[in-house]
């Protein structure tokens, strides 16, 4: 899948994570196993279904346990530490909806993903491509 779309970027990153930092991938899947997450980034909608050590693409309209709304700009602001995850939620740059248990599980999964992201050798290159695409092709 191309990383020209937000969904493509997410799927590519998950595949790299599984290959390069399997411990982080497993730690990400464990808390959200059995859940579906619908993601809307700048109006682009897609969904993920988590199992114990696998993530599948899912239909966005299939009644997810969690829904997440964000933007490329917000993702880059988080990566650049212009605000924290908590501030992103409070300032509505990141909107996460679900039951308290689902939201806590998503948080744990996201933190595990991030621990893998900062370790995976291929992620800096992936981030450069994401940043270039978010800036309209300019790095």
């Amino acid at each position, binding site marked *: 899948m191309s990383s020209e779309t937000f969904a493509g970027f997410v799927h590519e990153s998950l595949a790299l994570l599984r*290959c*390069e*930092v399997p*411990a*982080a991938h497993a*730690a990400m899947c464990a808390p959200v196993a059995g859940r579906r997450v619908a993601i809307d980034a700048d109006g682009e909608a897609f969904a993920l279904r988590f199992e114990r050590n696998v993530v599948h693409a899912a239909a966005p309209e299939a009644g997810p346990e969690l829904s997440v709304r964000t933007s490329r700009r917000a993702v880059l602001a*988080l*990566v*650049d*530490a212009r605000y*924290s*995850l*908590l501030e992103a939620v409070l300032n509505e740059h990141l909107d996460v909806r679900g039951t308290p248990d689902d939201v806590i599980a998503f948080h744990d999964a996201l*933190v*595990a993903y*991030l*621990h*893998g*992201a*900062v*370790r*995976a*050798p*291929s992620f*800096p290159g992936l*981030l450069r491509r994401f940043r270039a695409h978010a800036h309209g092709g300019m790095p």
Partner: protein
Amino acid sequence: MFDLSHVGGERGGVAATIDAVDFVRYGPRARGEPASFKEWQHFAILTEALDLLVNFSLCDDPRPGAPGRTLPRLIVMARDASGWEGDVEEFREDETYVGRGRTDLEFATNTLVFRDGHFLITAGLRDRPVAVRLRLDPVTMPAYAPSVPMLDGPPLHWSVVPRLEVTGVVEVAGRRHRLERALAYHDHNWGRFLWGHDVAWEWGFVLPDDPDVPWTTTFVRLTNRARTVALSHGMLLWRGERLARVFRGRDLCVDTPLAYARRPRPFKVPRPMALVAPELAIDVPSGLVTEAASGADRLRCECTVEDVAQVLIPSETGLGVTIFNEATARTHVRGVVDGARVDFTGRSIMEFIRVV
């Protein structure tokens, strides 16, 4: 701790001794040896208008799928009236040159070399507006502490030149700082361990406010991660060029106020790591008092923390983070050594390692 007064040989002097002691150790890995070697050259500059940290490091990269055997990193952090700026940048092996057996490093366009008795540093971050061009002239003899014990592996080695005079230019976000014989500190560490091993340290130095003050001091306490066992504890005092006194182990006692250093939003680099270590609370005391006494000599070093920035490195033993808290401080040193009264104020940078 070795007396190095003879090391420079017939040439003698500070520069020859640094040449003989303070050189790059990084080299080929023996067959079957784990990817755990680490080496870094650290420089800190303290002036009224600017604090600056520059760190060149070469570490084995133990990650599966890593692009090379070595992970060269450059840390540049500057603090001026506008706050902190800087970053941690990594380089590929094919844009790195390592002159082994001397101090000669090139990470892309960033260079560190010891030549003709001077350290020369040229560095400019790719993604942040910080650039430095510096010449550092060592004032004190180095000290060399080999074989500092570690719990999870072979010992750590440390050499230190605690006082240098620096001349050059530092540019931070368009602000230009000219340095003319400002005081600086340098040390060099190497050893075999992983971030995440059972180790922590609390370390610092004091450079006097008045450059005519002949005293310079450093102190270090290496512990287990829980900070319940001190593996090594020392305090060193130079008078002019010479190492005047070393206090060790039971000579020393450390105390802290019952308060933490508080920052509304600590500066963290590299920035993406702030996502996995977002904590606003800093496990750094608001001050540190080191007292040393041996025979008729005694020394008290009282540091009061002014500011803290964090360098965040992924642990290599699990999904944790090793936090290097870089604390700037105001310090008062007083005591009596060899019958001479020691009493001066100065600036310090202390480093507190924590693991989360």
